[in-house]
């Protein structure tokens, strides 16, 4: 009861629709990013219905053909249609990006809450997190992939683990300041359990910064997935992913540049869209963070 009257100061209570409309008008780049992402999601979900053919279909007579009316993005060294491969490839990239963001946020939130609230756990957990953060993310992912079989699930796992410490740090910092707030103290005073305090009072106030952080994690996961595939430590070659297509096309840079051009362009546009969405969300959801500071890569 106590919290119900205090909390609105922290969680915004403006009518949703009004703030949403204002957000759209104020932040056209964010809306652009969101629209592009939505289009990519639709394309990925409905890949068979967008003029694509089987991405694995070989057509040796038409190999290494440039972009044309029949082959919009050209064909690769085995005569496979690059437009179809690029559209199907978006499935892997988007799935990896979303899953890594959701997983690392969930696990990071859980660890961060406990670490911020229970001082004894904190010392140990933070030392471990410091250690993991000292390992450059892509190297850690490479090492994990070297020990696991190439599959989309393992790529997600390998990219999630390096991101967790960054989320933990963010959540922990938020919890440390939230636990001193009057409404948390009040709910503790009326006898709420640790779990109730954490879940009902602390967690809701971490959501906005976490969503912002999630977009940056998603953006870097999409790029890292392509890096892993490109280096030969990513998804298996029989599933078309943007990184795989480009890795296969690298030996043909001189004669068939389009093999690399189009998947890379889509990769860049997707990451750009996620980044624009993230910057926009940061500015609207969390004005305190809006100082040109990127949580995701800067930490």
């Amino acid at each position, binding site marked *: 009861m106590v919290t119900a009257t205090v909390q609105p100061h922290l969680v915004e209570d403006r009518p949703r629709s009004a703030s949403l409309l204002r957000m759209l008008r104020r932040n056209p780049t964010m809306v652009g990013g969101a629209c592009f992402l939505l289009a990519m999601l639709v394309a990925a979900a409905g890949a068979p219905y967008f003029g694509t053919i089987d991405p694995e279909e070989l057509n040796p007579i038409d190999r290494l053909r440039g972009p044309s009316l029949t082959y919009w993005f050209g064909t690769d060294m085995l005569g496979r249609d690059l437009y179809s491969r690029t559209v199907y490839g978006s499935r892997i990239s988007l799935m990896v990006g979303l899953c890594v963001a959701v997983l690392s946020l969930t696990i990071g939130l859980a660890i961060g809450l406990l670490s911020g609230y229970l001082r004894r756990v904190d010392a140990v957990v933070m*030392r*471990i997190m*410091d*250690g*993991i953060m*000292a*390992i*450059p*993310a*892509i*190297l*850690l992912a*490479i*090492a*994990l*992939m*070297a*020990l*696991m*079989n190439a599959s989309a699930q393992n790529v997600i796992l390998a990219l999630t683990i390096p991101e967790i410490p960054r989320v933990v740090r963010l959540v922990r910092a938020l919890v440390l300041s939230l636990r001193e707030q009057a409404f948390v103290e009040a709910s503790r005073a009326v006898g709420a359990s640790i779990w109730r305090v954490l879940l009902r009072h602390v967690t809701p106030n971490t959501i906005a910064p976490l969503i912002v952080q999630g977009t940056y994690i998603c*953006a870097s996961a999409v*790029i890292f997935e*392509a*890096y892993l595939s*490109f*280096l*030969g*430590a990513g998804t298996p070659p029989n599933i078309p992913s943007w990184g795989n297509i*480009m890795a296969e096309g*690298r030996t043909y*840079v*001189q004669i068939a*540049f389009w093999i*690399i*051009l189009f998947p*890379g362009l889509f*990769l*860049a546009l997707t*990451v*750009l869209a996620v*980044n*624009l969405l993230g*910057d926009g969300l940061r500015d609207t959801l969390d004005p305190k963070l809006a*100082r*040109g*500071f*990127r949580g995701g*890569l*800067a*930490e």
Partner: protein
Amino acid sequence: MIAYLLRRLLATIPVMLVVALFVFALLHLSPGDPAAVIAGDYASPEDIERIRHKLGLDAPLHQQLAIWLWQVVRGDLGTSIFSNLPVSKLIGQRLEPTLTLTACTMIFAVLLAVPMGVVAAWKAGTWIDRSVMVFAVLGFSLPVFWLGFLFIFGFALKLQILPVQGYVSIREGLWPCLRHLVLPSLTLGMVYMALIARMTRASMLEVLREDYIRTAHAKGLKPHVVLLWHALKNASLPIVTVIGVGVALLIGGVVVTESVFAIPGLGRLTVDAILHRDYPVIQGIILIFSAIYVLINLLVDLMYMVLDPRIRY
């Protein structure tokens, strides 16, 4: 001062210890038999047994850990499964190209990105500011290897003004070395520049709002004096921090960049190690890169004292 330095050096030990433990644990936390995974799908039982013995996986766990830690402390990073050479030797052979490329990238990126950020903050809200911000967002979004291939296609294949690939050691002359480093550095430096430019702008914007900046202007100092000596100096702590933290991005990028430009450095060693599942090499590379990263950030911490006389330990 000396006491602080020692204390900071000591503080890096637990971090590196956790890194070492983590790298050790990875091999054992992985699902299934690590020896079988490393040996690959076509290995015979004898091969698996040989690898198990070579990695010391047949000893009890605590003994393995003690042996591994003791070896690492003495600088022995184990032996490559594939080439049978000591890992430390393999890394030593490949260190030079990677360090040259990274150093070159850092220097040019800092020299370009800091002025970009300063000018953007100074001309906040103008087209200059906006184009710097567009560059910053793009820098974060363009995949390194794709950018590398675009540069190769444009500058090396079409315009033919720069070499396509390869590496020339600085011992064979400064000019040929630099010519081969232009495109890789540009490729590798893009994200790093975006990060630094963005942080410089943000930090400068905050400082430029301070009263002492207005005072400096009011007493008739030239704008560039105010900008560089009053503003940039006070805005430098977050910038230096991000220069250090961003090294993680460079280390990740260098693996990919070397692969694109066929530079025989640590990145290539990493890729070869992945192909052969040469786990001792991968462990060694992670340890070396993490140590470099931790040391650079230690240097950054020490830079604080130079940059801000108020910070005294």
